[in-house]
């Protein structure tokens, strides 16, 4: 009786352990499968012209304008989101203690972190792209700056959260020491607290950059796309994810192969960024 109970428990345990190992194996298998396909499917299009030719002449197999566009859009997004995000995170960590608004905003920021990016794209379409018709004789113009703002909205909550978390890790004695010397609060914040949390904040910015580099949905109705290289953020701009989206829908297998090559470049860029963010700065940042 007790021997059979013992056996049942042992079998149950072994089954659970085996299933758990299989689950982990499945997860790793899918990672390997997806990474392998992005490399093998696009390998034949991974040539120098991928980085030099533009998408206006598709058969030449280049994505240069999309890569330049992506760099500019990401740069704009980070440029807008970083000061606002660091400021907002600082307010949450340092100023909101006696306010009921603080916890509410911290909570809503976590929701914004996972909000559907396509809706944020539509929001930016409404507030930036639609009003542009009043500036340019009735024509609605998509623009790089609209794309940059859409990406900034996605980067913002990541930066707010890491800044907030990193500042709260700064020991309170540092604040007390500075305040007792008569340092005003703003100087304490900008010159001591943010400086000592700097590497954590940089990690947050890099993670935000990794996050927005792969975003497609919010760019469809903001930066829109461009078959030529555009350096002017007031004009429509191509981006790597958006061109991959277009080329994937294309019926021609040759164009699909270029999409795979673009996907490989994009994936490597994003994974390298998140690895750098995690290991170069070795801090405990949560990023769910």
């Amino acid at each position, binding site marked *: 009786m007790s021997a059979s109970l013992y056996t049942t*428990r042992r079998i149950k345990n072994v089954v659970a352990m085996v299933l758990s190992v299989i689950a982990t194996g499945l997860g790793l298998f899918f990672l390997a499968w997806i990474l392998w396909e992005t490399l093998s499917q696009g390998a034949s299009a991974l040539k120098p012209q991928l980085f030099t030719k533009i998408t206006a002449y598709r058969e030449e197999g280049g994505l240069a304008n999309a890569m330049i566009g992506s760099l500019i859009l990401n740069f704009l997004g980070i440029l807008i989101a970083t000061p606002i995000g660091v400021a907002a995170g600082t307010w949450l960590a340092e100023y909101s203690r006696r306010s009921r608004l603080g916890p509410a905003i911290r909570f809503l920021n976590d929701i914004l972190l996972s909000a559907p990016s396509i809706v944020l794209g539509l929001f930016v379409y409404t507030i930036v792209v639609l009003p542009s018709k009043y500036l340019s004789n009735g024509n609605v113009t998509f623009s790089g700056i609209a794309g940059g703002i859409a990406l900034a909205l996605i980067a913002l909550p990541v930066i707010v959260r890491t800044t907030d978390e990193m500042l709260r890790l700064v020991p309170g004695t540092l604040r007390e020491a500075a305040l007792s010397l008569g340092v*005003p609060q703003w100087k304490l914040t900008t010159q001591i607290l943010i400086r000592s949390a700097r590497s954590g904040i940089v990690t947050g910015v890099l993670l935000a950059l990794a996050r927005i580099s792969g975003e497609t949905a919010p760019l469809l109705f903001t930066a829109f796309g461009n078959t030529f290289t555009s350096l002017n953020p007031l004009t429509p701009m191509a981006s790597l994810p958006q061109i991959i989206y277009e080329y994937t829908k294309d019926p021609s297998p040759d164009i699909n192969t270029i999409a795979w090559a673009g996907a490989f470049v994009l994936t490597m860029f994003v994974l390298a960024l998140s690895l750098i963010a995690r290991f170069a700065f070795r801090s405990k940042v949560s990023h769910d």
Partner: protein
Amino acid sequence: MHATASNAATAPGHTGARRTSTDSRNDLIFGWVLKACALLVLLSLIGAAGSTLWLGQDAFRTFGWGFLTSAAWDPSNDQYGALVPIMGTVGTAMIALVVAVPISFGIALFLTEIAPQWLRGPVASAIELLAGIPSIIYGMWGLFIFAPFVAEHIKPWLMNNFSSEPPDGQVSWLVQHVPWIAKFFSSEYPFFGAGVLTAGLVLAVMIIPFISSVMREVFQTVPTRLKESAYALGSSTWEVVWDIVVPYTRTAVIGGVFLGLGRALGETMAVAFVLGNTFKFSWSFLETGSSIASTIANQFGEAQGLQRSALMALAFLLFVVTFIVLLIARLMLRRLATKEGN
């Protein structure tokens, strides 16, 4: 600063007072600027909901509550109903959860209880890399690699066993005795890989890293003495996990699941290619369909007038639903944070 400091030493009263008043003014301005930035977070959420509701009001007015229950999506007759995209969104997200939750649980269990210490870091990082892959890549992989795989291996098996028109011609015993089951496994194009099931499975792979990383984090918060006590009483690893770890972390685990659900509902690019983008109402998992996000991505560019308004109304619905799901997720995760603090 240095100049004022030395001045203050020679004439303490005058300059000191001025410095204090300048400093307190600067402090006030600085505080307000920071607060304004924090309010932008709030504003962007309100703005996203408000702008989609504003531009979607035509559709809501024209169709009323019928917008939610009508299966019509017909741009040529200007008739729009949200039922098919809602079903597609909910259906794919449910399949994703059913597949992803047990696998994520297994991964979290492996990483916290089973794996040797040296293996935990690398495996956890690898699983998190899955979360770093851009969603458009999941979409491509789904379209070119996974959908053909489903069409070749998974779908024929399901149809042979559960559908009333199986490719091998023999209606299975189960379908003969429980005919209603066939309703969920019919397919107009049996050799076509795209469909609700395929999209749900791609979403499952996408949300596994999110759910498993939350589970792993909360499993680690279980006090070691609780687990060791159970081990000391002779519990097996599985019993410790099922009777100690899971009850202790239940709320946060559900929070993590809801977090994954929120991701799955709002995902656009991973499902845009593999859902088929058709608007015919069906109960079948193997049929093509469309989701709210994929409909917006595919149609918004060319849409005008009422169609555009209907798409905005869809976006509003999606935003409200994901907001509620994520709200529940964060509330459940927050309760764990306070518990941890004690």
